């Protein structure tokens, strides 16, 4: 089906008899497919009989590109995956590389990473709520969410100079420490933010149309959700308390206290509730981390043995003892910077479980870098969820899965 961009499907043309289903091509240019997702729909009236998602319109070959770049350079590629929460992608890449290099991350850097990760989660969830509500038709929520996301992006700009593609997390730690101004800004933000969440909830939570549009739509049972590979808030909406932050803690998540909200029915409404609760929990985590920051004042944010930005292919090993006059004497023996082997790391990105599997052959470039992105898996579940629903529900389902096409196509 759909051989190329130019060709029109032959099935679509010449549908003359009345009992033939109605085909519609939703996307890749459509206001609510969140990017370049293309859905080939088979309709009976407005009911969806079959849905065939076609992805790859944003395929940039990150996995292939990464094989030609050295480890630190791939982090810039990771920004472009889920461009709404780029800090989470940076962290996943760095965690995998650190496991490969055998690096220990300083405590302050771990706390800073946790903060930016949770900020990324809040900003991603705000964008999700904004677009999800807009898709369903509530346009005011959209601008309310963007107001607060703007605030957060300004803080990001102060932290690392970028608003969207941060590249803030580095192998071994983070790029630079927070200034006092940033910490103050974050304190202010965390104080106000819970009220703001309440504000969004008053806008839509008790709205009857919102409830009718979201309750009992796209119900997924717990078993079904696991079989479909759903992760993150979508899985937790079905009542499975699987959260990588709790199950395989990374960074400073074992030091902070937070709850993992879960839903009951596994419908669009429950996932909405889970994400709203996560906004509050993220706020709580940032708050706790800010207090921990004062404990670790002045500690380094990058370990001394962190690799250079441009990792050399091999380094010469110095003699164990420095020569009193000549400094180090190189013995001529070359050792690879990166040990050969493989590493796997996964994090709880705002969209779901983001896993990175890296195979090294001892050079400064990864032999194979595999990225398991939540959006890819979530789009694969779309046909199962959409079957039997109406077009209007499909919009709600795309919204509830929270897909980013940069994330799914890589």
């Amino acid at each position: 089906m759909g051989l190329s961009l130019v060709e029109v499907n032959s099935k679509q043309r010449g549908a003359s008899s009345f009992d033939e289903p109605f085909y519609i091509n939703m996307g890749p240019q459509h206001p609510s497919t969140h990017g370049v997702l293309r859905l080939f729909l088979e309709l009976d009236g407005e009911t969806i009989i079959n849905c065939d998602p076609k992805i790859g319109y944003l395929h940039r070959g990150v996995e292939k590109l990464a094989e030609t770049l050295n480890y630190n350079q791939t982090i810039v590629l990771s920004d472009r995956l889920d461009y709404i929460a780029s800090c989470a992608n940076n962290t996943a890449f760095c965690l995998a590389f650190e496991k490969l290099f055998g690096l220990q991350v300083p405590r302050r850097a771990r706390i800073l990473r946790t903060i930016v990760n949770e900020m990324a989660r809040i900003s991603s969830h705000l964008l999700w709520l904004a677009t999800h509500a807009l898709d369903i038709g509530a346009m005011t929520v959209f601008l309310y969410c963007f107001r607060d996301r703007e605030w957060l992006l300004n803080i990001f700009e102060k932290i690392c100079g970028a608003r969207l593609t941060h590249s803030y997390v580095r192998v071994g730690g983070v790029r630079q420490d927070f200034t006092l101004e940033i910490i103050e800004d974050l304190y202010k933000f965390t104080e106000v933010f819970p009220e703001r969440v309440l504000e969004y909830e008053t806008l839509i939570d008790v709205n009857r149309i919102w409830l009718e549009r979201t309750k009992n739509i796209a119900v997924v049972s717990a078993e079904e959700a696991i079989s479909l590979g759903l992760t993150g808030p979508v899985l937790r909406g079905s009542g499975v308390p699987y959260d990588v932050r709790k199950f395989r803690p990374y960074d400073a998540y074992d030091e902070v206290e937070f709850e993992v909200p879960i839903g009951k029915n596994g419908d669009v409404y429950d996932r909405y509730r889970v994400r709203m609760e996560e906004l509050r929990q993220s706020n709580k985590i940032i708050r706790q981390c800010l207090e921990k920051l004062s404990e670790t004042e002045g500690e380094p944010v990058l370990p001394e043995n962190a690799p250079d930005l441009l990792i050399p292919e091999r380094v010469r090993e110095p003699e164990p003892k420095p020569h009193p006059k000549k400094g180090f004497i190189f013995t001529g023996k070359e050792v690879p910077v990166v040990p050969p082997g493989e590493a796997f790391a996964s994090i709880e990105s705002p969209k779901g479980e983001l896993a990175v599997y890296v195979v090294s052959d001892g050079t400064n470039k990864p032999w194979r870098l595999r990225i398991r992105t939540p959006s890819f898996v979530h789009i694969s579940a779309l046909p199962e969820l959409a079957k039997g629903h109406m077009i209007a529900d499909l919009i709600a389902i795309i919204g509830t899965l929270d897909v980013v096409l940069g994330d799914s196509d890589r």
Partner: protein
Amino acid sequence: MSDLFGELREKFRAQILRLEAGDPPVITLKREGFLEVVKFLKEQGYNHLIDLCGVDYLNFKPEKKEERFEVVYHLYSIERRELIRLKVPIPESDCWQYSLTPFWKTANWFERECYDMFGIKFKGHPDLRRILMPDDWVGYPLRKDYPLELDEEREWKVYKELKERARSS
């Protein structure tokens, strides 16, 4: 973990090539009889298929691999909070693997991607076609012998047509 290894060794002596403890433990399996081991593991509680991917080991220096390809699975047990990695070597001349779609629906797209990128066919897959690349694409991009930039005559034919049309108009 060790009792799982013991049990595996006992039950599937013929299928297992290597067992390595570590973080996470790695089980290298033969392709034949692979499905039974996965079925057993799923019964043991490894119910979450995190990832499925192919790796091309063409001219891999640090280690001599017997076969060119490997399909790597990451399984996770949500109840026991344990991760394991399965590896199945696939020879280049006989490039196929059993599909996991009967056990996990999510394997569907992972396998399609693996096929798209490495050309590894999956037996028992309901709908094996390209996913990220266009349907009429030639070659498997993530193979090590596939260049990063294609020369002009090997470009995708639709793209070539579009270019020509733009030039003529």
